[in-house]
């Protein structure tokens, strides 16, 4: 168990969510999304359109938060675009956050549609990894924790830095280069 502090939320000054607690939760999650993008490794050919695109499904507050947070920031020297999923083709996304409001059918459909595409799919639903997601965020003891599926990452031709994996609560599946381990401490 890692204690996560909502101090991260200080990075994000604006808030439009209904409740303060929910706003702070999404501020931390937005910071997590950016960090996953930082520590992830995409195939070089996936950036043919010259930008890194965050796609957010079913949670427009996160879109606003990320846009504020990532203004003028770059990932791999590329400009960053943040959009709601409904406004773009799934194929142009590099990172997809599926909020809890998505139905299991929608979830299933997006995962199926993005098979073999280098897309980091992050969710916040229980059993998300088993449904085909790569990273799942969850709340425990009042802080945000995450778990990772290496098999699903590999299916999308992606890797996450071991520095990041060290902080995951749970890592399942086998890494392509490292021996399998149930958990990182």
């Amino acid at each position, binding site marked *: 168990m*890692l*204690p*996560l*502090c909502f*101090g*991260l939320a*200080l*990075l994000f000054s604006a808030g439009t969510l209904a409740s303060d607690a929910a706003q702070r939760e999404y501020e931390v999650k937005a910071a*997590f999304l950016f*960090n996953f993008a*930082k*520590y992830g490794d995409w195939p070089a050919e996936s950036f043919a359109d010259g930008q890194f695109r965050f796609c957010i499904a079913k949670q427009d507050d996160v879109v606003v938060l990320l846009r504020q947070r990532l203004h003028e920031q770059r990932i791999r020297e590329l400009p960053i675009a943040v959009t709601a999923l409904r406004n773009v083709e799934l194929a142009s996304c590099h990172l997809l956050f599926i909020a809890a409001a998505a139905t299991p059918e929608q979830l299933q459909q997006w995962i199926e549609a993005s098979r073999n595409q280098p897309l980091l799919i992050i969710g916040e639903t229980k059993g998300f990894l088993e449904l085909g997601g790569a990273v799942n965020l969850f709340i425990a003891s009042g802080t945000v924790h995450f778990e990772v599926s290496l098999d699903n990452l590999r299916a999308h031709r992606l890797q996450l*830095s071991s*520095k*990041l994996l*060290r*902080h995951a609560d749970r890592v399942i599946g086998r890494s392509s280069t490292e021996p399998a381990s149930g958990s990182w401490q």
Partner: protein
Amino acid sequence: MMGWAGISLRGALLRVLGVTAVVAVALVALTILGYEARTFQSRLQQEVGAQLEVVALNMQAALDFDDRESALETLRTLALDPRFRAAIVTRTSEQDDAFARYVIPDAGDFIYPPPVNSNLLRMEQNVVFDDQILGRIEAYYHVPPLTDRLPQYLIVLVVVIAALSIMAALLYVSVERLIAAPARRLAERARTMAADEGSDLPLPENEIQQLQVDFERMMQAIARRENSLREQQARMQLALSAAQQGVWELDPATGAMIWDDATYRMTGLTREQFSPTWAGFRHMLTPDDAAELANTLATLLQSQRPELTTFRWQHTDLGERHLQLVGKLFVSELPATRIVRGVIRDVTELTRAEHALREREQHFRQLVEQSPVPMSVTNDEGLVLLVNQSFQRLFGYDLKALANLAEWWEGVYPDPIYRAAVMQEWHLRLEHADSTGEEFEPMEVQAHCRDGELRDIEFNVQRIGNRRLVIAIDLTDRKRSEREIRKLNEELELRVRQRTEELEIANRELEGFSYSVSHDLRAPLRAISGFGSALVQDYRSKLDEDGQRYLDRMMAASQRMGMLIDDLLRFSRLSRTEMIREKVEMGALIEQIWQELQDSSDIDIGQPYVGELPDCVADRSLLKQVLVNLLSNAVKFSRNANPRRIEVFAETLKGETVYVVRDNGVGFSMAYADKLFGVFQRLHRTEEFEGTGVGLALSRRIIERHGGRIWAESAPGKGASFRFTLSV
């Protein structure tokens, strides 16, 4: 001289080394301490910096994901270093609060932030991800004070001083050997070089100053030598240009050459046309000459002696020339170089002259070889170079047999005594001819030819340069003829002498006989003429006309006989009388005779024409008889001439004085000229011209006794000239 100046170089060196060693040790000690003090921290920083960098890497995700527990875990790894005391991580966004903090358990008194003068080293390390500073790690390490390490350094210092002392001692020894000793030697050598530049001045004690003084002297010496060198060089150049020589240089290692202007002139090349290299130069020669040139170079590089070679050269303007290259290897030690230097000269004329000389020599040789006169050629060393065919024919020795001269002498002069004499004389004459430059006096010897025949040889020697041409003339035949002629002559002379003696005896007998005859005839003649006169006086009137005529004719005949007898007596007496020679004045004598002739004559005989008459030495009375004869003849035979002309004069004929008596009388035919001077020989009848016919015979006798000659020239009716000489 103060301070250092007065000290010898050795002392100075000793001091320098001592001070240097002390200073060096002090500096080294300080340096080591300073270095240690300085580097201890920096070394620590380096070591610890690496650890902190690793920790910072592991701290990135912890800061990003706000994982304090993981951060503490990571910091704890720093405690593996025994010097580590504490570490604090702060976030960039929360500088006042520590994100994580770790202090080792046995450093309980650690206060953050620690005081400045504590023995703690503070290290900082930023945590950076993607150029963004996420946070900062501060770590504190314990640094023991310098005093704790001093004993360690002191031991090192002592060791260093000991090592330095040893090195200083070694250095002194080597410096003394490497610098002071060579400096002394250098000074001595410089002094030797400048031996004549005020060497009597006192020398300072310090070797460097000595060296200075000596160098100044040496500089003067060098300046002087340089001057003389420059003069020499100028003379050399003059000599070279006068000798029409070019100078060149060759680097045998690279083949590069340097030519001077004279060399270019001589080869007809220009600097633009040809930049000289050995290979390029050789390439321009004929293959034979090029090979020869390469050989010469090889020899030259080994021998270090001057070598020369001559080669043909196609000169662009002058056609084929003969050039001669002389070179020598110059090796210098410092810097180690090997340079061939030399001269080049045009020997075309020389070569052609040599060629011509060889040709002439060939001609000479041919001349000698084919000469019918036996000849041989020897050189100054006495070696026989050439023997011609005539020589071989004459002596039977060829060149092979003559190679050994001793054999020649022994073979030709087998008698040792004669041989020694000939050899001595031979060498004497050769030396005389050589030393005086006169001709070799021909030497006659008797030589044994190879076939054993003994021959008379005359040897002549002609010097031709450094050789001698020996000419042998075979005198054997000439000698033989000479001997025969001499023998014949001797026989002839003997016979002539015998005959002369016989003749003289006969002559004397004849003279005696004619004298006694003449003398004995006088008495009966006197009786005849005496009784005849008596008969004429006493009985003439008693005789008839015929008888008287007979008597007159008898008397005339007896008178004439008396005159003949007188003449004969005079003639025969002439060879018995003694001659008295004296100086005779010809002119005066002629005048006296003419007067006498005039006196005894019935008619006027006029005056003769008398020319220039030199005086002479003769028997006066005998000469007077001759002149009386000649002049009275002239008067007698010119009595019918009108006008009569008689000349007496002298002329010079082949250096001899000839006296001439000429008349314009009846003359005579030259057919009878040989009878003119015989006794009783007459060309005219007594009826025409009186005379006994003894006069001219007598004259001839007298002239002959004086050693002279007498002769006559005439033609009938053209007068006559009588000429005589008198030997002095």
